[in-house]
């Protein structure tokens, strides 16, 4: 029903600070797009600019192909769910949800029908006559969503809607939001700082950092092919291990040895020519590391985190760096054990000094024709 486009959108304040530094983005109809990034990256500001609560300094915002920069918030056909829910405390749940329709001067019968329908979808029927104060956090959240549904907006905007809920409820609401997305078949834009929410919910993730888009893609694209160091470090929990190294002279066959601190050398096959001696960063996901008696990395287990299904081992290497490796849930390893780790040669990432990716890992199931990651086949050797 609704598409949304941003064309060179910028936001700067009178003081001269620019918080959004030119964003181009397309949101397709019925897409679930998640803006993710650390605090202060501008993701909430961007959402508020889309909503019309903040002015757009430069660039165009298009909804269904029409420029809406100067259209007031209510006429953009958007609905927003706020982090604090922003329910009207002196109104009942039903009045909260029907407020927009009341302001629009719709007849009471129509209002009641729409509120009842939203209450049915969100299972809010028993609390319709209560005030927000007497509701639980999850119920308030649903009322806030109900207020958005009732307006039948073209695009739903969510500003960190789950961050005030406890962990169990957050997981539950995540599922409910996805169900709702399915049921309403609506375009949704969702802001979060939690990369787990982004990974689990998004059709498309937009990683923002310091007012710029770092990368746009599906969750697995970002996970398997981070475009730069920032995305590599931000997406994925636990974080990708990032190890600084130096490029050696190219060996015959197109492989290039990368020497890490501590003397470990990893041979990669980069997509472009690397100048010998240039510094690079090698990225290894924790699940790409496995214990092996002949592994090149050796160190003592500093900390063993048991999550049940898996165990995260924090290993201090001989060179002083810390690696996080993922092991089996029942792995017998204990803290202070000295272990050796080998890296799965097909899943390493190499980043240049400027942070951009040089060679990308092959995803577990590479699609045919997905060529750009086939030329990177790192192999491992002990120096």
């Amino acid at each position, binding site marked *: 029903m609704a598409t949304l486009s941003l064309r060179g959108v910028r936001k700067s304040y009178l003081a001269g600070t620019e918080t959004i530094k030119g964003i181009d983005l397309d949101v397709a109809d019925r897409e679930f797009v998640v803006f993710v990034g650390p605090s202060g990256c501008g993701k909430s500001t961007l959402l508020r600019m889309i*909503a*019309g*609560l903040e002015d757009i300094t430069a660039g165009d915002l298009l909804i269904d192909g029409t420029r809406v920069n100067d259209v*007031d*918030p*209510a*006429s953009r056909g*958007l*609905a*927003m769910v*706020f*982090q*604090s829910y*922003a*329910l*009207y*405390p*002196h109104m009942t749940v039903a009045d909260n949800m029907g*407020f*927009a329709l009341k*302001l*629009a001067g719709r007849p009471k019968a129509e209002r009641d029908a729409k509120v009842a329908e939203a209450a049915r979808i969100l299972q809010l029927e028993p609390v319709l006559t209560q*005030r927000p*104060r007497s509701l639980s956090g999850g119920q308030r959240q649903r009322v806030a969503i109900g*207020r958005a549904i009732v*307006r039948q907006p073209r695009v739903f905007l969510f500003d960190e809607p789950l961050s005030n809920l406890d962990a169990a409820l957050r997981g539950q609401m995540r599922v409910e939001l996805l169900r709702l997305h399915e049921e309403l078949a609506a375009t949704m834009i969702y802001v979060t700082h939690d990369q787990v929410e982004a990974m689990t919910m998004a059709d498309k993730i937009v990683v923002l950092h310091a007012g710029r888009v770092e990368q746009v893609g599906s969750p697995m694209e970002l996970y398997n092919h981070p475009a730069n160091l920032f995305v590599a470090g931000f997406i994925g929990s636990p974080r990708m291990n990032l190890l600084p190294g130096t490029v050696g002279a190219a060996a015959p066959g197109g492989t290039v040895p990368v020497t890490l601190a501590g003397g470990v050398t990893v041979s990669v096959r980069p997509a472009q020519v690397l100048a010998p001696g240039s510094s690079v960063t090698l990225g290894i996901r924790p699940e790409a590391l496995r214990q092996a008696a002949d592994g090149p990395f050796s160190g003592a287990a500093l900390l063993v985190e048991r999550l049940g299904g898996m165990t995260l081992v924090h290993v201090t290497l001989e060179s002083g760096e810390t690696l996080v490796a993922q092991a089996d849930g029942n792995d017998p390893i204990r803290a202070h054990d000295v272990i050796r780790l080998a890296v799965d040669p097909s899943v390493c990432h190499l980043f240049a000094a400027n942070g951009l990716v040089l060679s990308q890992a092959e995803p577990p199931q590479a699609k045919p024709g997905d060529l750009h990651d086939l030329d990177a086949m790192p192999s491992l050797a002990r120096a």
Partner: protein
Amino acid sequence: MSTVGATVPMADMTASQPAAERRARRRMLPLVAPAVGVLLVWMIVPLVLTLWFSVQRYNLLNPALHGFAGIENYQYLVTDPDFWASLVNTLVLVGAVLVVTVGGGTLLAVLFDQPFAGKGIARVLAISPFFVMPTVSALVWKNLMLHPIYGIAGFLWRLVGLSPVDWFATFPLASVIAIVSWEWLPFALLILLTAVQSLDHSQIEAARLDGASFVQQFRYIMLPHLSRAISVVIMIETIFLLTVFAEIFVTTSGGPGNATTNLAFLIYARALLQFDVGGASAGGMVAIVLANIVAFFLVRSIGRRMDI
């Protein structure tokens, strides 16, 4: 969900709580007794004395005339046309000042919450009349503002070719209301401004997205949010406005005639102009009853608002 589970322990608690609480209270009694005792004496002694004088023949000019008067003082009071006039004046003064200060204070509070240049200075200026003592502000209004010859109002009137108005002679009660409103508007503004600032801004933003105009945001979001603060302002102002005295004493001395005589001024006139302490005390009792009636309704209405 858990209402069934929750009521059982609640019932247990209410059964055992009063006994334990009563015991605890008895232990606390000696500790709080001195403070309560002082307050009690502080309140009871003047009250009982006033009550006592109000049933006495007690005239400062004629010590020979004394003894128990029964309800004579009250009879004299209610048959005095000045008394009823003063009661009406009191209520008009309180009501009008409340309307002006709460209405104006709410609007100013919303305006002062908007961003504009020089906001800090404007706020200090708007609040400063509250720090001027009543006698001084009454003198300022009498001589500098409303005086037909020296006053700014007179100057402005002449500027547009009108003949200046002697405000305290032509509109005496309205003039007093203006002075008292000027003094109390900052108080209302101060309380209501903090209330406006405590409003979760995202509620306003949500209302904007819901399509509310500025007036509708004010009507449906701000005003309900301010209702508690407004009742607090009304209660506190009412208590002080029932006893307005200095402004009247300085400007009109209750006149012309009894046009600006309120209950407080009537009691003063009885006691210290006519030296009739008995009659003044009877008026004082009426004032106490009046204040208590007002307080009763106000406290109840605030109690109800606190539930929201």
